[in-house]
């Protein structure tokens, strides 16, 4: 059983950074879950449809757990955090604001995100705040399946000459300038590092991630992601696509505010 935030309050110096970290991670998982679940019923193969849906549910479950932890820290509830903010208050990485796109775009986005998330989670394993360390321990076990799936698909697209490879290269070209936004430095981050919650700063984690990507992309002859465009605004300026999405996912709640669903 994970330890709760109430039972184990974090050091006061770390609270601001923790809230920013949890919000960024929860929003990442919540938003990528939307584009993944858009394949429901229309994926390239029925079996793959079911697989993609499980990945989307995992992401949603991870978001729910992260929102839950943040809710304990901020004395609210997970649904309020997920649903009741204005579009500008969401802190997900800009990488995830791109439209679903074709299958190659989805694979490219998932690969860039999952590999970055893996590096982020590794830096949180065994951290000094028990409730988060407990949760991360569980997330890491679930993420293994995601890594297996996305690694396999990247190889398949990259090594299939012609259309698959071309589409993958095009997708990576589009997403590349936003790929590093998962590692956008967070407000309050130095305290997280100083208090041993986050092992190293985001900038160092990004360098690690780029090194890992480089060796894989070199082998597969894929274009390396360029330096992040507009790195200070990596988790803001979500654009019209997200505003539309926000309108969709709040439509039922807004139709009857305060109702129980």
């Amino acid at each position, binding site marked *: 059983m994970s330890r709760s935030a109430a039972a184990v309050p974090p050091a006061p110096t770390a609270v601001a950074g923790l809230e920013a970290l949890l919000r960024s991670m929860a929003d990442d998982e919540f938003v990528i879950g939307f584009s993944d679940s858009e394949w*429901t019923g229309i994926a390239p193969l029925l079996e793959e449809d*079911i697989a993609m849906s499980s990945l989307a549910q995992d992401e949603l479950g991870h978001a729910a757990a992260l929102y839950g932890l943040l809710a304990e820290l901020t004395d609210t509830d997970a649904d309020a955090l997920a649903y009741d903010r204005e579009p500008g208050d969401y802190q997900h990485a800009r990488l995830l604001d791109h439209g679903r796109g074709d299958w190659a775009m989805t694979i490219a986005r998932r690969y860039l995100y999952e590999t970055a998330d893996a590096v982020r989670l590794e830096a949180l394993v065994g951290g000094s705040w028990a409730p988060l360390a407990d949760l991360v321990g569980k997330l890491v076990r679930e993420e293994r399946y995601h890594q297996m799936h996305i690694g396999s698909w990247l190889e398949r697209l990259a090594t299939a000459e012609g259309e698959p490879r071309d589409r993958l290269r095009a997708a990576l070209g589009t997403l590349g300038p936003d790929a590093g936004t998962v590692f956008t430095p967070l407000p309050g981050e130095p305290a997280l590092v100083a208090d041993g919650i986050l092992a190293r700063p985001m900038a160092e984690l990004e360098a690690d991630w780029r090194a890992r990507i480089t060796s894989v992309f070199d082998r597969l002859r894929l274009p390396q992601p360029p330096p992040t465009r507009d790195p200070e605004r990596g988790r803001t300026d979500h654009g019209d696509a997200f505003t539309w999405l926000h309108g969709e996912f709040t439509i039922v709640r807004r139709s009857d505010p305060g109702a129980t669903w």
Partner: protein
Amino acid sequence: MTDPLALDPVLAPSDRASGGAPARQHDEAYDAWFERFEAHVMAGGKVESTDAMPDEYRTAVLRFVEMHANSELMGVLPEREWLMRAPTLRRKLALTAKVQDEVGHAQLLYRIAEDLGKPREAMFDDLLAGKTKFHNVFHYPTVGWADVGMIAWLVDAAAIVAQQALRDSSYAPYARTMRKICWEESVHIMHGRDVVVTMVTGTPAQRAAIQDALDRWWGPLMQMHGPRSPRDKDMDLRWRIKAKSSEELRQEFLTIYVPRIRELGLVIPDAELRYDDDARQWHYTEPDWNELRTVVTNHGPMSEARLEFRRLARADTAWVRETILAAPQAA
């Protein structure tokens, strides 16, 4: 789910699902074998995918399973748009899992049909060309979250009544799959009922939305199992591919679910609906079989839009199937 034969009384010959092996000139040896086969299935004997079976039986099973598979696949679409709009994290998870199960059921059923000799791509071709059918309920629009609850509860309930009656089908792969599907569907019904009960005990607007959803879905639900057809002409019953007739399924649905609907204070929009203790059956306003015919021949409110959505999505992913997930070569 209803089977194609149940729709035959309302469909013109040109609209019936393709299938029905041409009549053969049988010789004595074949006739004797055919009789033994019939005796086998009529006595409760089972048939596996690798067994020898008459073309008529194979065709009947294939047509039945294919329509069921098509319905699971098309059934994803009415609910799919609400995945994005689910109002809480838990509801979103539940709905995503439910819709995933429907795709899973489509996979299970198309696999059965594939093992009977029809390639998956050919079945998609026929579905999208309107040559094969899918159930009426999936041709209608969903207008709000109340519809999502109502479908998950009552449409799935009507389906499970039909599916439970298939768990002992003579075609054993189908029987086994039905047991797995019934187990999975029971969770969907609970999710649907939970949404409905939550809204019924919620705000006045939520209660009104649920009653409105019931008002709109009751007609299609009553049509869903299909019109009565004569038992003696029903080869699917004779060969025990299915165990119950359309009317038996409808009566069973009413018996279980009318009390559960009424206990929530909802009004079923049929003034004639009542249980006759003497006849031991439900009386109801005759469903609109013209509407059923119009809808299942792809003239329903959402038929063409949903088929077109599928065609576009299929075209969009064709490049993956032509390269990495290539269909098997025709045998």
